[in-house]
């Protein structure tokens, strides 16, 4: 099956600076992805060896394909670095299973860097 899902990604709190200064991105992701979140375009997922694209895969995908520089400002150990909050359709991702949340067509995922200025 070669189907893809379309999602919307937003960056806020300065994270957009890492992504070409664009806050809003529309992405098409493969519906089924490797268990190890390998994001190479030509990777083949063997029958029964994949999982639905989830937020953990999205984080890897953003790091590998959209990030312009300094990956450590966004990703750390397979998840977002400390100080970044993730929203799944305007809900704190902790309520949705964090990285294991399986993306659905039309979902909106927001990455917010917490601010400290006053």
């Amino acid at each position, binding site marked *: 099956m070669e189907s893809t899902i379309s999602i919307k990604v937003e960056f806020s709190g*300065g994270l957009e600076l890492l992504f070409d200064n664009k806050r809003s991105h529309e992405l098409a992701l493969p519906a089924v992805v490797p268990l190890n979140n390998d994001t190479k375009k030509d990777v083949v997922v063997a029958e029964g060896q994949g999982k639905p694209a989830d937020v953990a895969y999205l984080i890897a995908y953003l790091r590998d394909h959209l990030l312009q520089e300094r990956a450590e400002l966004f990703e750390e150990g397979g998840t977002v670095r400390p100080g970044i909050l993730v929203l799944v359709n*305007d809900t*704190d991702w902790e309520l949705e299973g964090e990285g294991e949340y399986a993306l659905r067509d039309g979902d909106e995922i927001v990455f917010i860097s917490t*601010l*400290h200025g*006053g």
Partner: protein
Amino acid sequence: KDSETYPLPLEDYKRYGRQMILDGFGLQGQVNLSHASIAVVGAGGLGCPVLQYLAAAGVGKLGIFDADTVDISNLQRQILHSEVTLGMPKALSAKEALLRINSRLNIEAVTEAITAPNALSLLRAYSLILDCTDNVPTRYLLSDVAVTLGVPLVSGAAQRLDGQLCVYNMVQGEGVRGPCYRCIFPTPPNPTTVGSCEELGVLGGVTGVIGSLQAVEAVKILTGMDQRPTMTIYNALSFPPFRSIRLRPRREACIACGKDATERRARERAEGLEVTLPAVDYVQFCGGPTPDW
């Protein structure tokens, strides 16, 4: 004798009438405000509008905590300070400006920096803490203080064209409180990932928006209006410019507000000991000394 008959001085009915007639506010709301004591930590971009609106609304006691002095680069947004108060401690400059608005205010202006050793004693007298600071270690410290003292924390932040507002440690009903700052951000960011207002800049109006929202949240809490643990984020160039998020519940494993920490504090209280903050070196925990803001 008046004070026996009326819960407020008579002139206050005129002065605060525009808010006292609001649904859910009323005379009781004004009485609550007049008895409230609020600590505003940071008299900068956020603290100025916060202080201004709380002073105008008739809050009984305001604590202003800031160890900085007024610099010319502050005046683009810190609207309680002025060319005349350049070089003066911000806490004193702010106090002077607030007394012009409301001469009856009871203001404690503190020019000492809030640190782990002095935080509990400096803030113990306040029923609500507003975080208007500009650095990571103090944000964690204030959250821990709020949890330890059992008061809500109205937290604001602003940088560039972005702002964030969140109420932590909020009463949710019978013994239930919302998450603390550490529940949401258990690990502090690496200092190299954190910019300062000096490096990144900030638009004055953005601090005005967030500071005013903090003042509204403080009034809602003190008057008992509806409150849920949400976070609001703002960007002046996005559409929509605002987003609000429902937050997770508190984390059982949180080192500040979780089960173990709550039991430790209960034990300390039972034994008549002084209640203590989590054993954290805030500056080291946050990866080194505060950057230059």
